[in-house]
């Protein structure tokens, strides 16, 4: 009896010790401070309950996210065990040893990249690109698209005025030329006693805003980062006639159709402009869309969602956003961090992720027949993810990005020089970066 009691006590003590140990493990996940991060906090409660591992979060607002987190990684900091880093960080983080390579972990746990949307695997996980070397699990799919005031578009008097001016029905634009017409049409128009404006586009100077906006247009005008046959050869591709026309077009959008004072706007300002009823159409990442659906001013069927329109030759691409989740190489809790990734990759978790506002990249979720009708923006998201392109993900991406920020803002917003000069200047800047890296 005594032995049995002792054994029982020992077993209870052992179980308590394990539970206490699990309770003691605390993982810190680093990401940007935005709506999806709040959804992830909610989602992660299931992981805490399942594993006994406590989750802590470190969220930094977007304008400072890259600065803060890249400093953390570059200094070998141990703040973050898990990092949902931007897609452009993948090259540097892989080459500089910030992220743990996940191939063996994926193989051992039956996680296959074929289960995820191909564009997100290439964009968020692979380095070098198009090689089976995985440094993250696609966590949050995102892409630049457009929202428009469906309720305004449907008003008979507005439709009539548009038809009278342009000779066609006011419908969501299929091409950028149509988009500009709509922007011009709404610019300065009185709606419900208020002056409204045509478009909200990205013009932010400090981090990545204007580059994301310009690239979103340039791709469909024929811009290429490099010669597909000869890497890093940019002359004639970055500054091709199509690219020049695309940049001129973006400037024309800025000149004709934005609200006054929008010379330094990005995601947050776009959301504010759209929700407050200031603009008819808004360029923004898909992550903003769930927020519009529940907004009292623009939700409840007042907003329509639109894939990036096509360029003059019918080409249609969109700027990729989104991130993958990685294990930080400096973390002392890598096993627990991998445990989180294993849990996050489960189809049922991904399904819940989508239902609470996270843009899942799992094909089982997005290819489900019910997916397209699950949210008003679901089909637009799917269609947009099929046409994505992304900025350089090289280890020197920040230098490349700063160069494009400078050149684009100088031309589009400040109005200095020509589009050709801006793109030529950008080639010169990028060439210098690649020469410094020994790639040219």
């Amino acid at each position, binding site marked *: 009896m005594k032995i049995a009691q002792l054994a029982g006590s020992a077993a209870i003590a052992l179980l308590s010790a394990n539970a206490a140990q699990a309770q003691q493990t605390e993982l810190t996940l680093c990401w940007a401070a935005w709506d999806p991060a709040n959804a992830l906090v909610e989602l992660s409660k299931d992981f805490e309950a399942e594993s006994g591992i406590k989750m802590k979060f470190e969220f930094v607002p977007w304008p400072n996210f890259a600065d803060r987190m890249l400093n953390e990684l570059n200094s070998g900091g141990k703040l973050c065990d898990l990092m949902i880093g931007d897609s452009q960080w993948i090259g540097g983080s892989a080459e*500089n040893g910030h992220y743990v390579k996940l191939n063996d972990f994926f193989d051992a746990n039956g996680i296959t990249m074929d289960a995820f949307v191909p564009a997100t695997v290439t964009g968020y996980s692979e380095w070098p690109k198009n090689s089976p070397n995985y440094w993250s699990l696609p966590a949050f799919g995102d892409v630049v698209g457009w929202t428009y005031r469906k309720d305004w578009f449907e008003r008979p008097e507005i439709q009539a005025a548009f038809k009278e001016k342009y000779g066609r029905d006011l419908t969501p634009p299929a091409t950028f030329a149509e988009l500009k017409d709509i922007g011009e049409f709404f610019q300065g128009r009185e709606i419900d006693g208020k002056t409204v404006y045509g478009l909200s586009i990205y013009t932010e*100077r400090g981090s990545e805003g204007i580059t994301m906006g310009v690239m979103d247009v340039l791709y469909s005008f024929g811009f290429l980062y490099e010669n597909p046959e000869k890497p890093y050869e940019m002359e004639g591709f970055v500054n091709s006639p199509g690219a020049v026309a695309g940049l001129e077009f973006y400037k024309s959008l800025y000149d004709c159709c934005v609200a006054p004072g929008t010379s330094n706007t990005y995601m947050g300002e776009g959301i504010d402009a759209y929700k407050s009823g200031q603009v008819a159409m808004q360029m923004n990442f898909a992550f903003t869309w769930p927020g519009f659906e529940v907004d009292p001013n623009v939700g409840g069927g007042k907003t329509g969602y639109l894939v990036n329109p096509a360029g003059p030759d019918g080409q249609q691409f969109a700027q990729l956003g989104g991130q993958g989740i990685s294990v930080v190489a400096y973390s002392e809790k890598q096993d627990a961090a991998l445990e989180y990734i294993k849990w996050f990759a489960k189809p049922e978790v991904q399904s819940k992720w989508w239902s609470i506002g996270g843009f899942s990249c799992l094909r089982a979720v997005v290819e489900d027949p019910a997916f397209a009708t699950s949210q008003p923006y679901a089909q637009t998201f799917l269609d947009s993810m099929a046409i994505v392109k992304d900025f350089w993900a090289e280890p020197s991406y*920040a*230098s490349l990005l700063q160069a494009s920020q400078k050149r684009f803002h100088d031309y589009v917003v400040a109005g200095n020089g020509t589009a050709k000069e801006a793109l030529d200047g950008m080639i010169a800047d990028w060439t210098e970066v690649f020469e410094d890296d020994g790639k040219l």
Partner: protein
Amino acid sequence: MHNPIDIAARATPRPVARRLRGLSDRAIAWIFVAPTIFLLLAINIFPLIWTIRLSFTNYAANRPNREVEWVGLRNYSRILTDADTWANMQSTAHFLIWTITFQVVIGFTLAWLINRKFKGNDLLTTLIVLPMMLSPAVVGNFWTFLYQPQIGLVNYAVEAVAGIPASSFSMLGPGGWARWAIVIVDTWMWTPFVMLICLAGLRSIPDYIYEAAEVDRASKWRQFWTITLPMALPFLMLAVLFRGIENFKMFDMVTLLTGGGPGNETLLTSIDLKREAFEKWRTGYASAYAIILFVTVFGLASIYVKALNKVKER
């Protein structure tokens, strides 16, 4: 026997006292000064020497695996031959010259006006110094709203005074206003600081000098030029030195207001340097940039301090 020094000396533990007994005054002085010198070397001199060394390499702090190459003067020549660097220097010079000019003129005038006895003097002084108590981040965000063409008070004030439609121009956007917009904000925030220093200068002038001038029937104007200004000048020059050094390093407020834009119009050297060092991670290049700026500030400050000393000696 009850002298505090004797008491303190007797409190020294015997082994320590025995060891110190054989040391000269100079050696003891060195022992006391050594920690400070060590800290100075560790925190200031060593990083400076290290930065100079890095400025001749292609080192990138975010790429520890890359081989560090000695590039000689390449970083320096690139910086000094880059048109953008000179454009940024021009923006910085514009910001420095105009902020200091406005702050000195307005600050000195305010100090001169407030240096009189009247009811509510203390309250007024407190109200005037409020802006400099705010955080630059708060000021940056606050003025971004004030400059907003549709809801900002500044544009509405311009419309009311000059009749220019409020939403037809943007202080922080294209059109050449952005450089002036940041000058206005800095002047609003830091004029009180200059005013306080000038006030200290004005209050240090003994009344009997003015009384003697009154006896000699010197006019107010003459008293100002021959007594007030010369005697307050060292204080004024000190304020200029402080503001000059501070504004050469200006980063936070301008970043919040314009992010360096439109284009590169308000890209001050400190913002550019931060981007090179901590966004592009071109550590070697940024080190060379920092050394160039250091030499510039150090050189200008040295000349200025010499001038300040001459004024004081007068």
